[in-house]
């Protein structure tokens, strides 16, 4: 490891611009003639649109255009789609209702976009938006997924009778029933995974620019995957052919999944730019973020787990009702299916698993992937039921887990996944030691003397990253392949640009991707630049989500670096009159092994471009591209241990210790990995203790601002103790597993296991606010 190569704690190159307020975000983009857009959104959760009158609004000062969904339809703009086909257990395809980017006949959640107003200033657009007169006939509302499935519930889409989108099964139901028939002990658990609102610090924004001279569109947008946005807007929404549409995602202030999806706003603004002849910018405000960003989680689950007389797991049954909100967002269907049920085996050798998932429409904001996407939900079910079982079986939680750990690899689970490698004892041991698990009882007694209820809980999670082998996900219904692309451009003076289809919106790619190059060629990190987020610069890419940038994006870079290295060696061998196999590149020097014959790196690059003296038949230039299609998912795993103290008088929980021992495979930059874990843990602890999304019965979002939606603050969190162990991933060249979501996946059950241990009651829902904890304590008094 060099000081800037793989494994080094290189400070983030991008932070100077972020920390000094010099980042360039979509809202910072200004183009000549640009106008400002405001969406008129539905105040009702469910209503028929009886009429839209825009005449008054059109007369307001500064107004350029007031546009409706019927005009959008007339211009041939398509409905928004979900790009992952799921078939119900009876073989029928999922029942996807129509999602018009601007509602034309029915609104289905509070925040549904209906009319676009464009004016010279944002203030004028807001004024005119208030003058738009929409008359609604209100319809009955349902916000709860369990209620929505009931007979006689309000019908949200004609395509989905009883609001059921699909009724999907995974695993062998018969084998699982047989396993349960042999059980000596069965533990049952009803569990709710609370809906979360992502709250990226930068609200979504877009700037649509139509160039009439070229018949060309440019879309600046807050996207985690600009190429997918271009593909979908071209192929499905009919905005423009791909060669006529450039999508740029500049600096993006956090995504957490919510900026993967293609929303109505970017489609509408692009179309409106052509329609009105002006560039159209929309910047969401915080209320719009709460109302109309895709939310996360929202599962209601019943689970049962069967054990034999030796406490070995025989089988697992899981039934989940997943709330999809009012429309199927772009990847919504994959989240509670292939990203959820496939992880239900966890770290355990479980012979038989059966999962059933019912996906349901409700009059709430659409739900899609949010940090962890399916894996936190799976981990919460499994790690809560394991803890509950340990208590029922009267064995230590660690012992029950150890008894069932997978220890031989590769391991085929009954739910598709094939784990390549891992060492679950190692992370459990590391976490227990760091947490001084053995000393807990003494700490509990000391806390009791201070009037506090102290509890400890663990969570042994596994998750799947590096999504994913294209053929595999294709066979499971994905509409896209999930490879990644890279291009390595060595300039004539030896500086290097890496073009990647991964997108950085806080992850630090400009540093970590450059570390790969420094490691390979020994060039200083300043001489490496990372180019991403622009479909005119990077040919194609699948973007950043599912902790895939390291495992998939970097693997593509490695493949391209291999090609560059091979060509550079050929050139050097030719110039140094040596054998290609004897050339090594080190510390910025290209040398013949065991001799003092060498060339500086820049001279090899220069030679490639002067082309005065290249091996015969070789093309000039030093630039290579590669596509990497993963051979398997990667499987980060680990153990989180949480220790809490509860004030029984008020129900306040303090996290007094949090240990995370994670196996992320090979680590490129430990500092950045720690940052990712910190953020993930904050989000997981936020879900466990603070973040609750409340809709009232009429479908109004009650938690639509920070006055009511509690985000974790620094003082809600302890100083984390973070450790890593390493079993390198076997399926990609760097051995990377991924670390972006693990914190949010492993932590919620650890917190709730600790809390239920502290208060002596297993009846506790998330977020376990002081009120919820106090209620639980009162209930057992």
């Amino acid at each position, binding site marked *: 490891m060099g000081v800037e190569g793989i494994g080094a704690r290189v400070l983030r190159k991008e932070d100077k611009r972020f920390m000094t307020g010099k980042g360039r975000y979509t809202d910072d983009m200004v183009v000549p003639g640009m106008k400002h857009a405001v969406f008129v959104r539905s105040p009702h959760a469910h209503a028929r649109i009886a009429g839209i009158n825009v005449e008054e609004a059109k007369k307001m000062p500064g107004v350029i255009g007031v546009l409706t969904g019927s005009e959008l339809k007339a211009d041939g703009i398509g409905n928004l789609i979900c790009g992952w086909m799921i078939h119900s257990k009876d073989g029928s395809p999922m029942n996807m209702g129509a999602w018009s980017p601007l509602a034309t006949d029915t609104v289905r959640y509070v925040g549904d976009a209906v009319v676009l107003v464009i004016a010279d200033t944002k*203030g004028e657009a807001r004024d005119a938006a*208030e003058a738009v007169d929409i008359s609604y006939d209100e319809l009955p509302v349902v916000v709860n997924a369990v209620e929505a499935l009931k007979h006689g519930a309000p019908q949200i889409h004609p395509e989905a009778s009883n609001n059921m989108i699909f009724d999907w099964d995974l695993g062998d139901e018969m084998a699982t029933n047989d396993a349960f028939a042999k059980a000596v002990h069965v533990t049952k658990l009803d569990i709710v995974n609370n809906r979360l609102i992502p709250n990226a610090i930068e609200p979504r924004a877009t700037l649509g620019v139509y160039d009439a001279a070229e018949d060309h569109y440019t879309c600046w947008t807050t996207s985690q995957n600009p190429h997918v946005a271009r593909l979908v807007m071209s192929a499905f929404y009919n905005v423009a052919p791909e060669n006529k549409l450039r999508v740029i995602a500049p600096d993006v202030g956090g995504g957490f999944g919510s900026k993967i999806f293609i929303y109505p706003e970017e489609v509408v603004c692009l179309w409106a730019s052509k329609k009105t002849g002006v560039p159209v910018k929309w910047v969401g405000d915080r209320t719009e973020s709460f109302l109309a960003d895709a939310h996360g989680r929202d599962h209601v689950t019943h689970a049962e787990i069967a054990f034999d007389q030796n406490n070995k797991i025989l089988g697992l049954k899981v039934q989940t009702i997943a709330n999809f909100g009012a429309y199927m967002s772009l990847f919504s269907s994959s989240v509670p299916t292939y990203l959820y049920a496939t992880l239900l085996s966890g770290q355990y050798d479980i012979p038989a698993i059966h999962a059933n998932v019912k996906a349901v429409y409700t009059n709430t904001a659409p739900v899609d992937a949010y940090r962890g996407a399916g894996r936190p939900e799976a981990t919460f079910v499994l790690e809560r039921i394991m803890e509950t079982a340990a208590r029922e079986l009267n064995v230590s939680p660690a012992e029950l887990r150890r008894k069932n750990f997978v220890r031989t690899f590769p391991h085929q689970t009954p739910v598709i996944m094939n784990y390549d490698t891992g060492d679950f004892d190692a992370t459990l041991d590391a976490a227990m030691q760091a947490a001084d698990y053995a000393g807990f009882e003494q700490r509990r007694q000391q806390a009791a003397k201070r009037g506090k209820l102290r509890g400890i809980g663990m969570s042994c999670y596994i998750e799947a990253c590096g999504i994913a082998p294209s053929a595999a996900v294709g066979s499971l219904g994905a509409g896209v392949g999930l490879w990644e692309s890279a291009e390595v451009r060595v300039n004539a003076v030896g500086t290097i640009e890496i073009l990647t289809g991964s997108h950085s919106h806080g992850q630090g790619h400009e540093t970590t991707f450059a570390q790969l190059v420094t490691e390979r060629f020994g060039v200083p990190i300043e001489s490496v630049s990372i180019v991403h987020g622009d479909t005119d610069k990077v040919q194609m890419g699948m973007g950043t989500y599912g902790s895939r940038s390291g495992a998939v994006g970097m693997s593509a870079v490695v493949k391209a670096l291999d090609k560059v290295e091979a060509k550079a060696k050929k050139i050097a061998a030719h110039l140094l009159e040596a054998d290609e196999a004897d050339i090594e590149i080190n510390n910025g020097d290209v040398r013949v092994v065991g001799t003092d014959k060498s060339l500086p790196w820049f001279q090899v690059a220069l030679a490639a471009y002067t082309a005065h003296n290249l091996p015969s038949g070789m093309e000039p230039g030093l630039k290579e591209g590669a596509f990497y299609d993963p051979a398997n998912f990667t499987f980060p795993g680990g153990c989180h241990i949480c220790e809490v103290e509860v004030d029984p008088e008020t129900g306040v929980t303090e996290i007094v210790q949090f240990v995370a021992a994670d196996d992320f495979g090979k680590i490129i930059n430990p500092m950045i990995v720690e940052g990712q874990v910190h953020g993930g843990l904050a989000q997981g602890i936020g879900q466990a203790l603070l973040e609750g999304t*409340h809709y009232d019965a009429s479908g109004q979002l009650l938690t639509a601002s920070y006055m009511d939606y509690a*985000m974790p603050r620094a003082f809600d969190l302890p100083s984390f103790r973070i450790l890593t162990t390493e079993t390198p991933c076997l399926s990609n060249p760097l051995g990377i597993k991924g670390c972006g979501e693990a914190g949010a996946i492993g932590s919620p059950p650890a917190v709730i296991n600790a809390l239920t241990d502290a208060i002596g009651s297993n009846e506790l829902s998330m977020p376990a606010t002081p009120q919820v904890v106090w209620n639980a304590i009162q209930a057992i008094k």
Partner: protein
Amino acid sequence: MYETKYHRATSVEAGARLMSEAEDGKFLAGGMTLIPTMKQRLASPSDVIDLRRIEAMKGIVISGRTVRIGAATTHYDVSIDEELAKICPAIVSLAAHIGDPQVRNMGTIGGSIANNDPAADYPSSMLALDAMIITNERSIPASDFFVGLFETALEPGEIITAVEFIAPDRAAYKKFPNPASLYAMAGVFVARSGDVIRVAVTGAGENGVFRLIDAEAALASNFSSAALDSLIVNPDGLLSDMHASADYRANLVKVMARRAIAEIANRPM
């Protein structure tokens, strides 16, 4: 449609005059409540009259045990006042726990009590300290000032210029913050001056701040947290919302009251 004229008043008289001339004017102090309301278009005053630059309304004056805090004094300035900390540390600590640093550097005591948010901290101190709310026209005892939710005894155009109170022998404020907003979900201010004990509760009442008369009676005969062991706080009349039920708030009021008294008992004076 939403045009607002901004005026900067340089004296209380000028502020009152500007208001009388305005069609639908609003006083502006720290703006921590008024500005967000305007941004959301829930308020659209024709004129905004800024009181923050009126020197006479700023600062803390202590003579003997009489404390006068100018209405335009920020929470931050109250929270760092060393002289005030010597004779009434409870109000200093209350100010230090309002919102966040940005809010404390902008928000003012006058704005807070004029607004009379049921979850605001200051109203409890005013009531428990038996403060006088001084306006450009009169002095209003705190017990008459806080009328209901966001409602006060102020007449249209009336300006709070200061608050005045006698520092108590002992006092403490205990706040249970709402986990999202950090406003009080239950805040209890206990003040003792000689035999007189006053306990005021904010954040919990359906009609805003109120005195906990039962607790005052119990404490009069035995000033200790144990005196409240058998206190029953009636949840009727308490707020109930998604953050906290009335039962839970009733519990919090009792716990915060006991903790305030314990703090007084433990604090060297």
